[in-house]
């Protein structure tokens, strides 16, 4: 049965935590700007800890109350005011991002220190402030209940993400950053256009109210199409993916992890939110099939191109293109389940798990590649000899992350794909299961190649170019383990993702 | 014809007239010509705005015109500045020491 958000009327206990989840990272940005240099890093690391605590507290509140956490800003009720709202989906994303960003923060301590003798250096200052900015923006995307606030959130995410791409300052990364910015701005303007049409037709921007008011008519279809295309451009779904690989591969490793693991999930999450909660009675199964077809094409194209890469970071970036494809397979599956009057939890949870396991695995893999680069001085896949000896922990982490991408048990990727495949079979859409199978085989091929090359013994007398601190390797391994053990979430007694998503009558009924 | 009607008509006339001058933006040939056309267009636009505002008794229009008048000068200065700096041989401007 399809789900819809319940309309919020009151602030729930613990709602203030949502405000904190959004504003604490931004306060960190402001404080980092004033303190500058080493202060910015200290502030960032402290904020990471505080933010993780806030995310856990929100999850606790949600599970205890069994209902969505809501906060009415300024006490004003929508449609005049703006509400923050966190259901199970949002809370799981909040938690996952807090964990991944924590791991990245620990890893980046070594790469983004202010050099001695300088009060403040460009790259560290920009990285630490923008890391917090990315985080605040993502939290806002997850908890905001208002389409215009979400537009601002998307822009915040873009402005925080673009400088991370061009952090290196070489012409090629600047070019990637510019391309990324143009795609992203184009995406946001389309999204805004859709939101404007919805306001014109229904007089509100609140997601909950819109869900109750929209009905299938040309304006709604136009709005849905515009917003979806805009978000796809920002998420880099095939064929709008061209900006992604150079942008993600050209950034410093920690920034790549942020961009590839987290930033693209913001616009994806918003697309899910719109399709599952707002346009549920408006979008048709064929349109969902189109999205999934693009996803399938992304899986095949992304994986095949990844196989042909000579550089490790580009391989990982193209693998992101493929993994984004999986994220869009859930749409027709959820719609199919809903149409058959079945619980769409399998498809939704599958998509959500895929997002989280990819976030953790991809962050770990990019950071592993960064360590490989530091150690070898290059990241040519053909010449990875010695990595196993110099960086055993990192290689294990890479393999675990790869296993999650492939979908080996008990990884999060396995559970995600298993849920999606079973949903595909339940709804008699077996071809999506086939795509996932082929995608898994291709993924295993390139993960295998990298691991085998890295296991090759180093030549006599070879020494690493530089040694990496142990805590960096631990951070990478920890994230990879998170991804690998995420499949154990199946043991979780409550369907957390379903909390706060009230059951409403199916498609077609008023 | 009442005064507001007359003012509206005058607004249309002024707007249409200065818009004709925009052809100069099309033709150039110098950037200065283009900027001049914009300058005339700006002044005419302010005049049309004032006529519109007084005709419809929208007093806030005066503030809009005030802002436009101030910033029209600003945009033109930006133009002149870049027109001279783009030649690259202006000794009065130096880059980083």
């Amino acid at each position, binding site marked *: 049965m399809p789900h819809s958000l319940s309309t919020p009327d009151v602030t729930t206990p613990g709602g203030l935590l949502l405000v904190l989840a959004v504003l604490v990272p931004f306060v960190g940005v402001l404080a980092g700007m004033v303190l500058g240099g080493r202060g910015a890093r200290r502030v960032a690391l402290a904020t990471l800890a505080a933010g993780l605590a806030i995310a856990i507290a929100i999850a606790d509140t949600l599970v205890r109350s069994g209902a969505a956490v809501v906060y009415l800003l300024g006490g004003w009720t929508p449609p005049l005011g703006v509400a923050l709202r966190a259901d199970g989906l949002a809370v799981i994303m909040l938690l996952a991002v807090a964990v991944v960003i924590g791991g990245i923060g620990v890893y980046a301590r070594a790469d983004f220190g202010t050099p001695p003798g300088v009060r403040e250096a460009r790259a560290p200052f920009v990285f630490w402030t923008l890391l917090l900015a990315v985080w605040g923006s993502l939290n806002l995307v997850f908890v905001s209940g208002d389409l215009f606030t979400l537009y601002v959130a998307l822009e915040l995410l873009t402005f925080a993400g673009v400088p991370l791409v061009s952090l290196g300052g070489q012409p090629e990364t600047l070019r990637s950053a510019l391309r990324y910015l143009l795609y992203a701005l184009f995406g946001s*303007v389309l999204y805004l256009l859709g939101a404007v049409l919805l306001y014109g037709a229904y007089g509100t921007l609140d997601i909950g109210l819109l869900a109750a008011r929209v009905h299938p008519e040309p304006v709604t279809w136009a709005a849905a199409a515009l917003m979806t295309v805009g978000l796809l451009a920002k998420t880099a779904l095939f064929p709008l993916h061209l900006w992604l690989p150079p942008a993600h591969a050209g950034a410093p490793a920690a920034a790549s992890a942020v961009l590839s693991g987290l930033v693209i999930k913001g616009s994806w999450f918003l697309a899910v939110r719109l399709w599952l909660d707002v346009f549920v009675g408006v979008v048709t199964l064929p349109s969902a099939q189109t999205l999934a077809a693009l996803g399938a094409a992304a899986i095949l194209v992304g994986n095949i191109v990844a196989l042909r890469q000579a*550089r490790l970071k580009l391989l990982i970036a193209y693998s992101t293109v493929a993994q984004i494809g999986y994220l869009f397979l859930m749409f027709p599956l959820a719609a199919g389940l809903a149409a058959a009057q079945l619980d769409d939890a399998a498809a939704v949870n599958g998509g959500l798990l895929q997002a989280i396991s990819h976030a953790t695995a991809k962050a770990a893999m990019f950071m592993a590649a960064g360590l490989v680069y530091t150690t070898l001085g290059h990241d040519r896949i053909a010449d990875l000899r010695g990595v196993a000896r110099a960086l055993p922990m990192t290689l294990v982490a890479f393999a675990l992350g790869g296993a999650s991408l492939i979908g080996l048990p008990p990884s999060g990727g396995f559970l995600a794909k298993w849920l999606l495949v079973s949903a595909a079979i339940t709804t008699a859409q077996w071809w999506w299961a086939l795509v996932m199978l082929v995608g898994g085989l291709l993924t295993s091929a390139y993960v295998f190649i990298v691991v085998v090359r890295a296991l090759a013994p180093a030549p006599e007398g070879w020494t690493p170019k530089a040694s990496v601190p142990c805590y960096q390797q631990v951070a990478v391994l920890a994230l990879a383990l998170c991804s690998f053990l995420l499949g154990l979430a199946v043991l979780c007694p409550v369907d957390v993702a379903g909390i706060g998503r009230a059951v409403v009558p199916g498609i077609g009924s008023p | 014809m009442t005064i507001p009607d007359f003012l509206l008509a005058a607004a249309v006339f002024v707007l249409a007239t200065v818009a004709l001058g925009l052809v100069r933006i099309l033709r150039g040939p110098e950037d200065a010509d283009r900027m001049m056309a914009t300058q005339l267009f700006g002044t005419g636009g302010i005049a049309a705005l004032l006529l519109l505002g007084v005709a419809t008794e929208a007093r806030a229009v005066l503030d809009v015109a005030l802002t436009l008048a101030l910033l029209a000068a600003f945009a033109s200065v930006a133009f002149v500045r870049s027109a001279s700096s783009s030649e690259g041989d202006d000794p009065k401007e130096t880059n980083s020491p």
Partner: protein
Amino acid sequence: MNTPTLFGLCAVALVGVGLYGLIVNPQPLRKILAFNLIGSGVFLLFGAIARRGAAVGMGGDPVPQALLITGIVVAFSATALAVALVLRLFDEAGSVTLAPDAPAEPPDA
């Protein structure tokens, strides 16, 4: 034909014009300009919708009007960032072409 509808149609035409420019103009600055045109079309549509919502003595619905101010400032920030990026690219590469000339390679890990 009343004022809001007229400007609403003008707005969608602007979106179309901007979209065309965004696709065909290879120069990044022109793309930024086209993006601004699309943006102004979207804003204008919102303004027309606000005007349609005139009620209780207000000339228009104040909520969209307030959001428009926010939108215009955000669009300006986006333009400033994009322009700065183009100028830096020009300083570094001597050209501003967006086409990747060589197969994209990560210059740095």
